[in-house]
């Protein structure tokens, strides 16, 4: 639970699965669209969930039953039919159970009246009548609220659905209401709009509780529900402006403070809460806004806003009945806790004391900080490692919930480069104002990693850079560790030290970037005295010149960076023309991969090289210099020129470099946080083996390629080479990729297709292109929304989607749209624009067939 994630990120996190399943309505979907573009982390997260969803669909393949299946079924059906036809009751009695139909038939034959079915049925009738009356009484209230959902006045709740006797959807019941379920379900709601998690997250107020199973329950008031006994499974979703307390059997209680949350109390091993064991095994609380608390005697868990808490394995030992009022009152008294002595704290402050240790020994000079919201109070540990921090809660806001927002962090003293900082963590015992708590701080040792880098051909990779990528396996995100890197030596060996320990749920992958080196290329050039600009043109083979403006004519240095496709293929770079304002020598620096053989020759403007040399070119005289750069052998074939993530093959202790950012993990060998015995982080040998990337082919040379994985961020991946090829090696394998290509000239092209990246080195993914178009049309002023969803309905770009805003003047504008019939949806109404681009009038807008227009 990192405090760095914003509330928006957490909201986004809760919506991503629904987004991938196309279940969000237009507004929320647009919100996610915008957020994942702005937030790279959520973009990556979305990619992961999209990948999972894709794989889930692939894993669930339809299965053919055996060939004789239908015959076997029909044989059994004929048997059944033969038995059924022995006693065939009149059609009027069908639809009830077979036995009751037969019994009723017998009674009818004997001249008896059918029995009144049961007391329960009578109860249903009474309840129905009561419900009708209740609804009639509350009808004026409903009408006055002008909302679609029924709204209950205070003291009433609404039945949303039920298969329990006596209650039906739409009934309103007065409180307190006691009910009993017998293997049924009932959904009760406070009847206010909003509160449906996943579809509508406006904090309009209202809650909904869903009870399943068997057992008794009482809705005491709109903010107090009691589950009394039996095997009830309860889940609740709510956005409420009020507190909602749910008393569970066995003295447990859920205390949901104002906000928005989704709570599920689940069964484990087939037993729901409320059984005699009184086990509360698993609770999931997802809080969108506000805060929630679980209070169960000794366990008192606060769940902060925007977080997901998964509480598992709460055993009967950990769970005790709620303390008495007297005990609670005592807990609120200021007192000394945590084993420290002679320390008292004021009622409005929290005192945190403890010792900083590393490998079992005290660490003097460490800086310990308490973070309370935006505030931070620090202390430096003394010679014996002890520290004390006091933070006045009055300054930070002294409500009890404020202490939920307390975090602890620590930084190792200067000179202890072998120790890692302790990232933010919450308190083991949540302190309340007026309390003193004891928190031991343990600083973990930094780890070391040694290994070799081996190319696809088995040769050592020299001078390559290795960086560490920390992967949060649970969230599915990855981040590069700043300042942790190593360069491989002439044998491909590298040593990476100061590797911070992994925390729970994290693992480390390694990113290998090939070596590069700057080679000075001294060029003596001719002067065009009349030229006004400083422009260096380089012709790439026979293609169009790629203009590389010289930013600073005084230094005259051009860096050609990250043109992997250019280098991996045979590149002929010819300095065609140099127009500089002054005569003299200039140096053009070309950044090439280590091991690249550089050929050069002089060219006097004929287009054909006169002579070729190896080594550092020193052209003299007028004319141009041509260069031929052959890639180093290890990289031939276009492999792995950009950053690639890697994974250990645990069986061979080798590392495979794969195409995914989230590619993987070192598992057992990874440096772990130092244990209480004080072991230093482990060091282990590993091999890194480069295998490849994913190649895209676009029918346009020198086109800029933007790549978007899933619904995530579109990033600039590079330029295509003369054959329209580009190697994009950091695409997560299995991901759906959308490609936008912009040609080197002013014409725009869009590749709207989605491609699934499969095995590396497979055939290139070919991407179709077409000229784009723009639209600008007046939208009838009948809509509340300012956002339109655009979908291409046919042609090569069928399914291409974009959003467009409607301006204040009611004009909808969008550019870079591919060809094809265009569907525009605003506020659940849609219109189709034909090839001529003319927008039909207001009467042509129909209700969209689905909420999302899909």
């Amino acid at each position, binding site marked *: 639970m990192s405090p760095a994630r914003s509330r928006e990120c957490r909201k986004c996190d809760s919506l991503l699965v629904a987004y991938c399943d196309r279940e969000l309505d237009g507004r929320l979907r647009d919100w996610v669209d915008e957020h994942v573009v702005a937030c790279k982390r959520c973009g990556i997260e979305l990619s992961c969930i999209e990948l999972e969803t894709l794989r889930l669909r692939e*894993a669930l393949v*339809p299965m*053919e039953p055996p060939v004789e299946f239908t015959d076997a079924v029909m044989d059994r059906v004929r048997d059944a039919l033969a038995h*059924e036809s022995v006693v065939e009751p009149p059609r009027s009695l069908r639809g009830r159970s077979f036995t009751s139909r037969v019994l009723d038939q017998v009674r009818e034959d004997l001249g008896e009246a059918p029995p009144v079915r049961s007391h329960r049925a009578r109860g249903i009738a009474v309840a129905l009548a009561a419900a009708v009356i209740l609804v009639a009484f509350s009808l004026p209230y409903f009408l006055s609220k002008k909302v679609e959902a029924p709204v209950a006045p205070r003291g009433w709740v609404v039945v949303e659905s039920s298969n329990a006797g006596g209650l039906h959807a739409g009934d309103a019941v007065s409180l307190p209401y006691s009910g009993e379920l017998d293997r049924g379900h009932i959904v009760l709601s406070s009847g206010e709009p909003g509160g449906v998690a996943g579809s509508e997250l406006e904090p309009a107020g209202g809650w909904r509780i869903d009870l*399943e199973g068997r057992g008794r329950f009482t809705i005491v008031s709109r903010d107090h529900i009691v589950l009394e006994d039996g095997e009830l499974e309860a889940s609740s979703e709510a956005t409420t402006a009020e507190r909602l307390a749910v008393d569970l059997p066995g003295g447990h209680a859920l205390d949901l403070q104002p906000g928005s949350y989704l709570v599920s109390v689940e069964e484990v091993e087939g037993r729901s809460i409320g059984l005699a064991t009184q086990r509360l095994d698993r609770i999931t609380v997802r809080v969108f806004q506000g805060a929630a608390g679980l209070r169960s005697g000794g366990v008192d868990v606060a769940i902060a806003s925007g977080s997901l808490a998964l509480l598992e394995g709460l055993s009967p030992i950990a769970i005790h009945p709620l303390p008495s009022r007297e005990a609670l009152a005592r807990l609120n008294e200021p007192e000394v806790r945590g084993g420290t002595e002679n320390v008292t704290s004021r009622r409005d402050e929290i005192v945190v004391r403890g010792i900083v240790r590393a490998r079992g020994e005290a660490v003097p000079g460490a800086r310990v900080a308490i973070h309370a919201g935006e505030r931070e109070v620090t202390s430096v540990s003394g010679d014996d490692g002890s520290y004390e921090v006091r933070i006045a809660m009055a300054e930070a806001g002294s409500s009890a919930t404020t202490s939920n927002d307390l975090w602890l962090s620590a930084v190792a003293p200067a000179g202890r480069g072998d120790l890692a900082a302790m990232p933010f963590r919450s308190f083991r015992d949540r302190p309340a104002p007026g309390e003193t708590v004891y928190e031991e701080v343990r600083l973990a040792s930094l780890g070391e990693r040694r290994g070799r880098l081996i190319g696809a051909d088995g040769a050592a990779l020299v001078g390559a850079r290795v960086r560490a990528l920390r992967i949060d396996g649970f969230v599915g995100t990855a981040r590069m560790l700043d300042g942790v890197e190593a360069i491989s030596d002439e044998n491909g060996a590298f040593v990476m030290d100061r590797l911070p320990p992994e925390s729970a749920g994290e693992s480390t992958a390694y990113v290998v970037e090939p070596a590069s080196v700057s080679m000075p290329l001294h060029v003596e050039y001719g002067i065009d005295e009349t030229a006004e600009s400083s422009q260096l043109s380089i012709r790439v083979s026979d293609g169009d010149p790629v203009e590389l403006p010289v930013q600073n004519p005084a230094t005259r240095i051009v860096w050609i960076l990250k043109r992997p496709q250019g280098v991996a293929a045979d590149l002929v770079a010819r300095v065609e023309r140099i127009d500089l304002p002054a005569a003299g020598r200039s140096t053009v620096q070309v950044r090439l991969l280590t091991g690249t053989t550089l050929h050069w020759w002089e060219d006097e403007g004929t287009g054909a090289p006169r002579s070729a040399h190896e080594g550092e070119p020193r052209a003299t005289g007028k004319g141009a210099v041509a260069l031929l750069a052959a890639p180093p052998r290890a990289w031939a074939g276009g492999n792995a020129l950009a950053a690639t993530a890697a994974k250990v093959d645990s069986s061979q202790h080798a590392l495979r470099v*794969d195409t995914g950012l989230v590619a993987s993990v070192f598992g057992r060998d990874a440096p772990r946080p130092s244990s209480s015995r004080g072991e230093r982080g482990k060091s282990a040998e590993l091999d890194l083996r480069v295998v490849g990337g994913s190649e895209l082919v676009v029918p346009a040379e020198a086109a800029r390629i933007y790549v978007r994985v899933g619904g995530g961020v579109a990033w600039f991946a590079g330029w295509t080479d003369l054959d329209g090829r580009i190697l994009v090696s950091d695409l997560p394998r299995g991901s759906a990729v959308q490609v936008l290509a912009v040609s080197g000239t002013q014409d725009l092209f869009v590749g709207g297709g989605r491609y699934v990246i499969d095995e590396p080195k497979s055939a290139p993914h070919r991407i179709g292109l077409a000229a784009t178009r723009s639209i600008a049309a007046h939208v009838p002023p009948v809509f509340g929304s300012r956002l339109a969803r655009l979908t291409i309905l046919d042609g090569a770009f069928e399914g291409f989607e974009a959003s467009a805003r409607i301006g204040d003047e009611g004009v909808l504008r969008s550019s870079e749209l591919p060809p094809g019939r265009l569907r525009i949806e605003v506020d659940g109404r849609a219109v189709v624009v034909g090839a001529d681009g003319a927008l039909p009038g207001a009467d042509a807008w129909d209700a969209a067939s689905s909420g999302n227009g899909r």
Partner: protein
Amino acid sequence: MSRVRDGDLVAFERLVERYKVGVFSLCFQILRSREDAEEASQDAFVKAFRARETYDLDRKVSPWLLRIASNAARDILRKRQARTVVNSDLLAVEPDNLLDPNAGAGENRLDSEDVHRALGDLSEQYRTPLVLKYLHGLTNQEIADTIGVSLSSLKVRLSRARELLHARLWKRWEE
């Protein structure tokens, strides 16, 4: 379907042909055994035929049929759990090892086999909604109707199922 309601066997045979793959697939995903899935699918169709008069002609066939199938599969699951309770030692063996002793070694990708295996580790109450959603393409309301829970309860189950699946997939990568 109206002909099926009237007991027309030819029409019913067509219905079996049309829906047998869907029904069998659902039963297989619940039971993870072809033999048990075949038994459950047959039971489901027989039960469907017996219950044909309760079918509401205004509603879609597949959720109705899948509901019967999921109940039939669960019946078999209950019987099977009762049978295997004495073999609890086997349960201590990691499911991955049972399926594939080499699983997890050196593979660096999330493929459908991983998901298939992780799905198998989920309990039936979480697996079935996922199957109905991602294999059969039912709406949430249809799934809720099919497995006999409320819509909000279903949402909680689906959400929990995806979380469990996500956590298990990543746990395997860390091994």
